[in-house]
């Protein structure tokens, strides 16, 4: 799309370079660089306070970086507004399920459908058959097809997590960022979620923050270990697990 991209970014979907943010002098993320390939599932792990969630916040525009660059398909994200980053093709799921509790599952998905983003677009928005079909399709994928009429606030914790994944899915982002998608889920729900993620990976990349090592092993193509805002280790799960520094600060505990 963008022909004038620098050579070093062309092969990656997302290139994070020298990303830094400090809160009152404390560097939560410190000169961080990493690259995500198309169709890659990247998992970020690390101890509490390592800056994992902050990295996602920086990429999706929720927190403003103090320095560095985040390029997505060659476009700089750091200067964009949150909604523009979404339009560029980056979706974000939060750690606590963040859904519209007063609306039904159907309405939650409908609001996430990528149409009618402007005020007048929204005023003119119609519940067209293609919208309804797509919502049905996504609801099927996230195991909520029978609950479309239910108020989202009445769903179980696991179902809320799925709903939020579905809200991302319906946007069809090229990069999906999930913050602890299986936190608080039962073993059976975790299995289903891993299945779900493996099913929706086609044609997109993911960055996932997760603590559950079994789950990470199941899905990760590549693992990045963060510690104190810096990359401690990066590579395949086996390589990371064998790294003595990782064992020291994270896995050993």
């Amino acid at each position, binding site marked *: 799309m963008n022909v004038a991209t620098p050579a070093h970014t062309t092969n990656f979907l997302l290139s994070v370079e020298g990303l830094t943010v400090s809160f009152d002098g404390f560097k939560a993320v410190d000169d961080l660089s990493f690259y995500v390939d198309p169709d890659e599932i990247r998992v970020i792990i690390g101890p509490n306070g390592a800056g994992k969630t902050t990295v996602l916040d920086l990429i999706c525009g929720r927190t403003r970086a103090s320095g560095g660059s985040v390029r997505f398909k060659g476009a700089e994200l750091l200067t964009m507004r949150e909604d523009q980053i979404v339009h560029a093709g980056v979706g974000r799921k939060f750690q606590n399920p963040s859904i519209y509790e007063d609306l039904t599952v159907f309405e939650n998905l409908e609001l996430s459908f990528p149409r009618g983003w402007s005020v007048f677009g*929204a005023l003119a928005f119609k519940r067209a058959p293609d919208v309804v079909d797509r919502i049905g399709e996504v609801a099927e994928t996230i195991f909520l097809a029978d609950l479309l009429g239910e108020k989202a606030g009445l769903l179980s914790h696991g179902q809320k997590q799925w709903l939020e994944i579905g809200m991302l899915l319906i946007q069809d982002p090229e990069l999906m960022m999930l913050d602890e998608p299986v936190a608080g889920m039962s073993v059976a729900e975790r299995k289903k979620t891993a299945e779900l993620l493996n099913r929706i990976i086609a044609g997109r990349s993911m960055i996932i923050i997760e603590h559950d090592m079994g789950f990470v092993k199941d899905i990760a193509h590549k693992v990045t270990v963060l510690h104190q805002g810096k990359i401690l280790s990066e590579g395949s799960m086996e390589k990371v697990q064998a790294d003595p520094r990782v064992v020291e600060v994270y896995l050993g505990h």
Partner: protein
Amino acid sequence: MKTPAHAPEQKLFTPAELVGFVILATVIFIVLPASVDAFRLNLFGKYLTYAFVAVGLVLCWGAGGILSLGQGVFFGLGGYCMAMFLKLEASSPENTAIQSTPGIPDFMDWNQVTALPWWWEPFNSFAFTLFAVIAVPTAFAFIIGVAMFTRRVGGVYFAIITQAIAAILTILIIGQQGYTGGVNGMTDLRTLLGWDIRTDSAKTALYFVSGALLFVCLFIAQWVRKGKVGRLLVAIRDQEDRVRFSGYDVANFKIFVFCLGAAFAAVGGAMFTLQVGFMSPTIIGIVPSIMMVIFCAVGGRLSILGAVYGALLVNWAQTVFSELFPQLWQFAMGGLFIAVVMLFPMGLAGLYDSHVKPRLARLVREMRVLKGLPPEPARPARATGAAPAE
């Protein structure tokens, strides 16, 4: 692809809402005109003008979570635009022959203003005035909205700033006496395009115009609430961040609903001027602005119909209390508001939903049994037993 069962038809009204609209229309257009004299009906016409503001607040505050304590500003701007036209019509050179500068409003003459200021000139035109009644307050709301919402000022801070704007506007109007009529406001308004608005018949006609315009606003409000924008406002109220990350520029939607609320208030203000015959800073300052929020709270901030009843009831109670207990009425009003906040925070509409509606439903069932009709078909059972989606 199978079509999911829960893609409800997007109808403008549910049957219950339609009944609510019809009942309100009956009250406003039949019951009140038939049961009170012209003087009281004119009072109710005045109360109706506040209902415009309350309906706008249901959209802003109830649906969108934007609490404005400065709706009096928009009510007042709409009212002043109308008052300027009426004042110019009342200030014909013949009527003002005794002034040192005939043909300009009396308060200008008293304040040694010798020519009509340029920004008064367009208000000689009725068409321009009708346009300005809505455009001026809406444009002002747009400026405030852009300044506040794109900077993500919200909640209590927004409420305080709107309150401050109400104070500033009042001070400005009082200070610019020669151009605005100062603290007395614009009084002695007589005719609208030659039609004497001080007569009982004119006031009754204006009452019906207010009622009709109120219903126009109610329909617009209903349409917005039932559409995607209405659901987005609820979403913004509950999970503003999530809405941003679903690709919406939240500020634009807040600006839109704030402007819509301002436009409603402005229409109410213009009708106030027509029915009451004057407009003054005391109608639009801090206290009236807070009262407007109270109308909305008493009626129920989630219900546009409730807000209309709230405006009518609170104002009516205020009039009755003040006639019966001139020294005590403000305490009575204060007590009423405390009772609302403590005992039924969702207002009259909330009381209706929790007490009247279930009984009505039971009554309907019993009637069916008495008439030997089969009971209503049971709703499909749900795992959680929750009410079905609207």
